[in-house]
């Protein structure tokens, strides 16, 4: 079977033979492609990037991401959980928004303290 590696912008077209742990991967420009093919077949995972509501008028949404990838099947449930969250303090990039989020942390990906509030 064929699949596109999504690890980097090269987007290698991988040609995969076999199944389970015993697979042969052709077409990967780097070892990450082989790793990706193995995970993708057994336990596909994605990083979730989205935004969380805040209480601040000058920045109504805070961009966030999962610190690690989460199971692909959990993406829509994760979005449901996101809708229940509200950020109430001004965070820095890398700060936790939610400590326990589908097996990892949800972290801020932007700084909220540098908004040019005073024109």
């Amino acid at each position, binding site marked *: 079977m064929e699949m596109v590696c999504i690890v980097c912008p090269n987007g290698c077209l991988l040609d995969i033979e076999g199944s389970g742990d015993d697979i042969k991967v052709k077409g990967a420009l780097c070892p990450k492609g082989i790793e990706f093919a193995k995970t993708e077949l057994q336990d596909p995972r994605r990083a979730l990037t989205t935004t969380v509501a805040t209480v601040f008028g000058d920045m109504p949404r805070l*961009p966030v991401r999962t610190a690690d990838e989460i199971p692909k099947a959990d993406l829509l449930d994760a*979005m449901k959980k996101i809708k229940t969250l509200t950020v109430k303090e001004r965070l820095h990039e890398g700060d936790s928004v939610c400590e326990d989020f589908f097996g990892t942390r949800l972290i801020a*990906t932007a*700084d909220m303290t*540098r908004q040019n509030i005073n024109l």
Partner: protein
Amino acid sequence: MDNKLINEYDLVVLGGGPAGLAAAVAAKENGARVMLIEREENLGGILKQCIHDGFGLVLFKERLTGTQYAERFLKKFYDLGIEHMTNAFLNSVQRLPEGGFEFVIQSAKGMVGLKSKTLVLACGCRERSARQVFIHGERPAGVFTAGTAQYLVNIMGQMPTKKCVILGSGDIGLIMARRLSLEGAQVEGVYEIQKSPAGLARNVSQCLDDFDIPLHLNSTVSKVFGQKRLEGVEVCKVDENYKPIKGSERFIECDALIVSVGLLPENEVAQSLGVEIDPATKGPYVDQELMTDIPGVFACGNALHVNDLVDYVSQSGHLAGQAAARYASGDENRIKVEYNSEDFLYVVPQYFDKNKEGEITLYWRSKADHRGKKVAIEVDGRAEKSKKYMRLLPSEMQSLTCTVKADVGQISLKMLDG
């Protein structure tokens, strides 16, 4: 109104996106006095709304979101204490007879006058709109560029649609297909007039395939319907000349059409100064240090040519900022970088300044899809650098670097059979 010209800078950087930030940081690190002008309220440019990841692999060997990538440069920018104005528009810029430039800027504090020795254009690019791709029909609300939809969702937290059609398979369109799906909208499909997707293969995979969104190639949106709000669109198949195929029309009920049909470098200021624009890139002609044909005016980032990756935008900003900081007017001594327009869509830079011998990096796109071709930089007829490519696509920018001496007579980029 206080319009006295009292502030003198080495550089004025126009634009506070990734190119402008990198230029300002590089110039400041080289000892220049820098002023950066940004029309929006906050610095960061389009990266502010790029919450998705995949940025920074070239520069930082990490997978960052656009906002995290911006943060790296913003930290440096603020740490260096670089002077800047936000919510500020350039009203006019003029060349001074004695060299240098005079600016009038409209800011929240009123009109401000500035002078500088050099100008770095980092104005980015703009999206082509639905008006530029000739869609027939009414003029209802609900037709958005992908960037506008992205702004509404990611910055404002407002959903622009419940069910939409996306026209064009550029990366922003693909990213928005995933984004809108995650937020609960139904994306009926992505329609692309070409025979292959315009965006990266991995975005087709992780943005469309992951969410079972169909991609229709050789297809386009031919009409929009609706009086106040969009009520639906007509899509159809096209032939090899992009003409609609009769009988292939199909009506789709939807409340939004998201248009992702390409980007154009923004060069209004460059043109007001008389900077010459390359019709192939739609950005200024530049030499290897990104100086335009007007001495002291530099161009970088997407204002120069539209890049696939922000990493390259930052690299060109860095180069322009560095060059502008040490710019001293001297005799120009340039040769044109030659290429066959049958093989390449374009090559940047278009000139090599022989006063600045050393490394030159050529950024280019192939004119058509190719497999197994070799591309070489030839200096005076000798291949100085060549590379074999498994696959070349017009949608994927490539680059080659080599060293060139001051006594060079001819530089050309060649496409050869592997």
